[in-house]
């Protein structure tokens, strides 16, 4: 079983290395198949691990394995250690399973790109990094995986490196994540100092009487989690990350990497339970993010950005759940979210692919008439996202909302926020669906989809806005796309429908039972609370859908005009502007001041002086070189004579 876990971890790494080392030695298609096969292999290995673990009794389901001692400093040891337990297996299955579908989808999506091999090497690297993160048996390995997913995310956001906006977005994501990495590392240092180990779960047993320490550690971990998961206040990088290819958005910025923060909260729940204020802060941040992102999603006009804000909002739910101590519910929502959000992104990718790279929903309309399968897939994804029974989101999201109810007055505030969130979810999800899919095809759509040819009609797609589509993405296919693209979408559509059925609290709850040995929940909602939460959430999401239909479907209501609110939302609550003002401008001003008052006169001046002095000395010494051989010979002879005389005299 441990062997299978290691195979699961190493297979994608081997694929990434193979593609990189072979370079142009293999065809682009072969690189794609190598990457896909390796991720499929990882999934198969994860299934084996899962099956073996399933056969054991719950109390023994924890198997650490150390490959070798990685570094030693005094009494502090770090091994290359993985831990196989229910939580890590759960994440392995989600990461490799959804990862496989998305990498397979990429074969069709990236077909014809100039740098397919690089893309697939990065994808395999990402899957390896993510598996390393979730399988890590100590915090150092976890941080290594954490950093590597950040790296592969950076590489893939900036994959189309001749597009300046993609490079800027990649840098922004990296810098934002670096803030979180730094706070996490600081938390680890505190733990090392206090516990002398970073192994799970010994490192977390800080013990009573260290209130400030455990609070600091929890804050550091929370900082890492909010940066990676794009929660308040480090959320601004995620929408920009949509510059990457759409499968990247589906895999990294929806299904797996951004949920790593939730995984971290659950994995280190022991620390957070000793610092309940910080855990409540995590839940509060989640609630704030889900409301904020839901509001911003209402005014976005880029199809991928709407889904990106929706991702942010859904991760807010997961944070809320993890912060309220409903760990299994958060993980369950993580899984169903991976299904339906990947589905939404990939369906959106089909639309973008067919429309030669256009992402502006104002130009779309009536796409569904010409792409019925995509419309169905998108509808399923939206219904699952909104949480309409019996789609998967209903089972996972409502149990989080119910868990909030069981945690006192603070829980009720979050409960209210989560309910408002469901209304917003219904509204923005169906705003998007109703604008893009039903009705008569718009002239733009007609031009791209009806003719089937794609030689002309590119002008409209290009130069429309800052996120103008890239040449690589511009190769529209007649119809809905190749089989390798539609098949994963359909598989995910099925999963988005039935994926939630494995747990229906409080009637049956295998996910909670599975994860209980790792993370015992703090929140135990009663059946009444479950039923109430489901009822409220269902009614409010229906209300959201209804409002969306009245405005965008039936056209009975006009879009309300509040200039101020619209401006605030279109500027995403001015976070970018505020960070610009608070950090970027002072830093630039400081740098300029240093350049003017220190660099120029002091450092530059002294170096100039030094250079002049050396030059003078060199010129002076140079005069000794007459170029006359006989002078040199005389000098040598005279010196020898002097030395001889000195020697003789000393004797």
């Amino acid at each position, binding site marked *: 079983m441990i062997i299978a876990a290691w195979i699961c971890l190493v297979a994608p790494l081997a694929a990434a290395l193979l593609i990189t080392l072979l370079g142009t030695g293999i065809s682009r298609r072969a690189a794609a198949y190598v990457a896909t096969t390796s991720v499929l292999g990882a999934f198969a290995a994860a299934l084996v691990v899962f099956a073996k673990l399933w056969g054991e009794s719950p109390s023994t389901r924890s198997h650490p394995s150390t490959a070798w001692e990685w570094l030693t400093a005094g009494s502090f040891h770090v091994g290359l250690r993985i831990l196989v337990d229910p939580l890590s297996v759960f994440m392995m299955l989600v990461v490799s399973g959804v990862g496989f579908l998305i990498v397979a989808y990429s074969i069709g999506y990236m077909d014809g790109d100039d740098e397919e091999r690089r893309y697939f090497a990065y994808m395999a690297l990402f899957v390896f990094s993510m598996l390393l993160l979730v399988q890590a048996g100590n915090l150092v390995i976890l941080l290594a995986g954490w950093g590597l997913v950040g790296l592969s995310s950076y590489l893939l956001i900036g994959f189309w490196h001749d597009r300046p906006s993609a490079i800027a977005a990649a840098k922004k994501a990296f810098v934002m994540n670096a803030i979180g990495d730094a706070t996490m590392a600081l938390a680890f240092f505190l733990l090392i100092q206090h516990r002398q180990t970073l192994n799970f779960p010994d490192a977390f047993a800080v013990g009573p009487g260290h209130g400030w320490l455990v609070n600091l550690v929890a804050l550091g971990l929370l900082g890492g989690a909010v940066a990676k998961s794009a929660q308040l206040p480090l959320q601004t990088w995620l929408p920009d990350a949509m510059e990457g290819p759409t499968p990247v958005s589906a895999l990294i910025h929806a299904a797996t990497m951004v949920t790593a923060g939730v995984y971290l909260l659950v994995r280190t729940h022991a620390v957070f339970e000793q610092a309940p204020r910080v855990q409540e802060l995590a839940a509060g941040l989640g609630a704030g993010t889900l409301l904020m992102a839901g509001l911003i999603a209402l005014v976005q006009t880029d199809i991928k950005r709407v889904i990106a804000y929706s991702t942010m909002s859904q991760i807010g739910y997961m944070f809320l759940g993890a912060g309220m101590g409903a760990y299994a519910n958060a993980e369950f929502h993580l899984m169903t979210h991976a299904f339906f959000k990947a589905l939404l992104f990939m369906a959106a990718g089909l639309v973008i692919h067919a429309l030669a790279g256009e992402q502006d929903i104002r130009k779309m309309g009536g796409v569904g008439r010409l792409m019925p399968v995509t419309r169905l897939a998108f509808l399923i994804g939206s219904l699952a996202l909104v949480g309409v029974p019996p789609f998967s989101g209903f089972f996972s999201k409502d149990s989080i909302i119910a868990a909030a109810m069981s945690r006192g007055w603070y829980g009720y505030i979050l409960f209210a926020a989560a309910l408002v969130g469901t209304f917003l979810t219904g509204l923005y999800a169906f705003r998007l669906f109703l604008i893009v899919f039903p009705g008569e095809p718009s002239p733009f759509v007609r031009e791209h989809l009806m003719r089937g040819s794609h030689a002309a009609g590119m002008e409209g797609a290009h130069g429309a806005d800052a996120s103008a589509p890239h040449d690589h993405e511009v190769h529209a296919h007649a119809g809905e796309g190749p089989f390798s693209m539609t098949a994963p979408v359909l598989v995910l559509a099925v999963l988005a429908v039935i994926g939630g059925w494995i747990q229906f609290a409080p009637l049956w709850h295998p996910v909670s039972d599975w994860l209980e040995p790792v993370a015992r929940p703090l929140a135990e909602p009663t059946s009444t609370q479950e039923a109430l939460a489901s009822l409220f959430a269902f009614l409010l999401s229906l209300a959201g859908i209804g409002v969306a239909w009245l405005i965008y479907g039936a056209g009975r209501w006009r879009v309300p005009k509040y200039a101020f609110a619209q401006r605030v939302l279109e500027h995403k609550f001015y976070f970018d502007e505020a960070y610009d003002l608070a950090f970027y401008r002072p830093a630039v001003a400081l740098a300029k001041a240093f350049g003017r008052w220190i660099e120029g006169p002091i450092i530059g001046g002294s170096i100039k002086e030094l250079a002049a002095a050396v030059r003078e000395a060199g010129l002076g010494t140079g005069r000794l070189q007459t170029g006359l051989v006989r002078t040199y010979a005389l000098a040598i*002879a005279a010196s020898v004579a002097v030395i001889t005389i000195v020697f003789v005299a000393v004797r």
Partner: protein
Amino acid sequence: MRGPDVAWYLAVAAFLFATGALGVLLRRSPLIVLLSLEIMLNGANLALIAFSRLHGESSGQIFALAVMAVAASEVVVGLGLIVAIAQKRLDLDVDKLSFLRG
């Protein structure tokens, strides 16, 4: 030990060395300068061999052989340079070949 006393050999060696040194210092043709260098080296060689004989040891002779090898290589380079200078139609005069002045 037969033959003249070691002092005689050293006197000849000193004479050869002085002759060579004067040649290097005074002559201006590179060819003659090289030749004088060889004379200096051979003066040193003679002294080495004389001492080797005096002490009944062979290391002095080995030194002399090494010096001859060095001298041969040096002449190769030196003569090569002189030929190159001649081919460039420059004056064969060490006082005029002073391009390396600082």
